């Protein structure tokens, strides 16, 4: 697959890997949503899909997942909101966003020209908020799927409370399911005792697919000042450090449910992405890597294509879930 990663009218770019010559079929299916390839960008790391347009052609990706949208605008959490940790980072942004109304009127129209799937990530304080947001978002034809965030560790209401309680999860997913017929992806939290149980609950309540994992609760301390490095003390850990945890959770959930999974968590190279595919993820989302390499997601895509070529895999779907475990 020849990939020209330049954004239209873009400036000099470097570091582009040599694109593979032969193209494997990289398309995958998430419920009724067909993605031209399995690489998406993760919510909260890619803005509203516009911020990286100067660095590469976003239309190359299988899809983008927007920053979480809530019913009302949110200013977000006090500072400091981010901290660097070994091979990772903590964030406590607090779902800062412009609210569903401005999202629909100002942000979404700017995505009309993109030749890629647009997945809108939504969250809310209550199940009813989530359903209402879903209802308003899904009416827009540019929205290809909804990802329900039940796993944000950085808000007082909703967020993690939905993703760690079976009954609450059931209620919020059912509400959103009723509000939309578009593909519904539920983004799971790793901050639970048994993620497979949560996966089953979400699927029983109507999820078409699951994405996992959201960030792990973490903290860090400034030993000079004796204060936490995150304003709200706790943040969500992401980045290369969490990848093995994410991979283990994909494997656990794979055994529990049959809906498509989207692997997220510390994917920092095409090799990481291929691991997730072998483990049973139908697609992957690139998150923290975007901060280090603004065109990192397209590098992952190129790498997957090259890998398929080298392994004589003509269809990436033949790779998914092929992990060979000891009997």
């Amino acid at each position, binding site marked *: 697959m020849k990939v020209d990663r330049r954004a239209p009218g873009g400036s*000099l770019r470097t570091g582009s890997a040599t694109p593979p010559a032969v193209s494997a079929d990289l398309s995958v299916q998430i419920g009724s949503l067909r993605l031209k390839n399995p690489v998406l960008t993760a919510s909260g790391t*890619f803005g509203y899909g516009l911020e*990286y347009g100067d660095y590469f052609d976003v239309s190359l990706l299988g899809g983008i997942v927007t920053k979480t949208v809530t019913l009302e605008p949110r*200013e977000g959490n006090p*500072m400091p*909101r*981010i901290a660097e940790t070994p091979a990772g980072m903590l964030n406590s942004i607090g779902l800062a966003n412009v609210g569903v109304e401005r999202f629909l009127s100002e942000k979404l129209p700017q995505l009309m020209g993109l030749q890629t799937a647009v997945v809108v990530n939504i969250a809310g304080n209550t199940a009813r908020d989530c359903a209402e947001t879903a209802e308003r978002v899904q009416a827009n034809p540019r929205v290809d799927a909804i990802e329900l965030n039940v796993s944000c560790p950085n808000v007082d209401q909703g967020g993690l409370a939905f993703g760690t309680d079976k009954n609450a999860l059931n209620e919020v997913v059912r509400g959103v399911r009723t509000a939309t017929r578009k593909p519904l992806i539920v983004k799971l939290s790793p901050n639970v005792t048994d993620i497979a149980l949560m996966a089953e609950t979400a699927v029983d309540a109507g999820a078409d697919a699951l994405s996992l994992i959201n960030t792990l609760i973490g903290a860090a301390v400034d030993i000079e000042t004796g204060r936490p490095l995150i304003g709200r003390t706790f943040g969500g850990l992401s980045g290369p450090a969490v990848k093995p945890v994410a991979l283990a959770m994909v494997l656990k959930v794979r055994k529990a449910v049959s809906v498509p999974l989207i692997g997220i968590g510390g994917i920092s190279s095409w090799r990481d992405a291929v691991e997730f595919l072998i483990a049973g993820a139908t697609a992957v989302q690139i998150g923290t890597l*975007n*901060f*280090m390499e603004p065109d990192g997601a397209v590098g992952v895509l190129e790498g997957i294509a090259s890998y398929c070529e080298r392994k004589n895999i003509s269809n990436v779907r033949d790779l998914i879930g092929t992990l060979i475990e000891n009997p």
Partner: protein
Amino acid sequence: MGLGKYSCQVVSQCEAAEGIFLVIMKARELARRSQPGQFVHIRTGCGWIPLWRRPFSVHGVDEKNESIQIVYRVVGPGTEALSKVKPGECLDVMGPLGNGFDTGKPFTRSLLVAGGLGSADLFFLAGRLVRRKKKVLFLWGVRRKSELFGVDALRNAGADVRISSEDGSAGKEGPVTDLLREALGEKEWADGDAEGFVCGPKGMIRAVQGIAGETRFPWQVSMEEKMACGVNACKGCAVKMKDGGYRMACSDGPVFDLGEVVLEG
């Protein structure tokens, strides 16, 4: 305006002052397009420790030689890695990012107040202001004399430079705000035909904010925050505003109206 990501060859790296390094890198586009107050976002090492890029103010541009300069102090793993980069090696640089200082207003005199390495972007600004035929008074506070660099070049460029140091080893002993109060006592700053610019540690900016409120001219501040993406995607580099909301240092700033920011910490 299209932004870029460039591989920039390091021309030189030297210790400009005690513990302060100056890097000159080849960067044709960045030299042409960078404005004072804007920054570049650099991967200072390879691998995932440190994880993030690091933002650096553009310290100067040399359009003839197609290069830009940054200055920094080694404060952590990012700058530690950068300090080991040798001439000939390439850095992965995004930029120019952010909104720089507004120098297009019709003021005659400019008052620049730098605390420590807050001078990093004010040097670039001073040069541009002189080029725009503005009068430049540059007040620079450091802890001690050994932290000073480039003062002669700044003076030769046409700026009136006054120094203060905490230990009295250079210029006037005391904080830079003493210099500021002294300067504001001179009658040329009494009217509104001026603009103030400030960059430095938060405590120093807070002190300047208090004094600036008494002047009759507007002030701009360049804010420094921890930053991950640099392009308004992660919403990490929040700056609190007096209206109760937040703005992002990377994309709304890093330059803000001094009167509008809340300085905490």
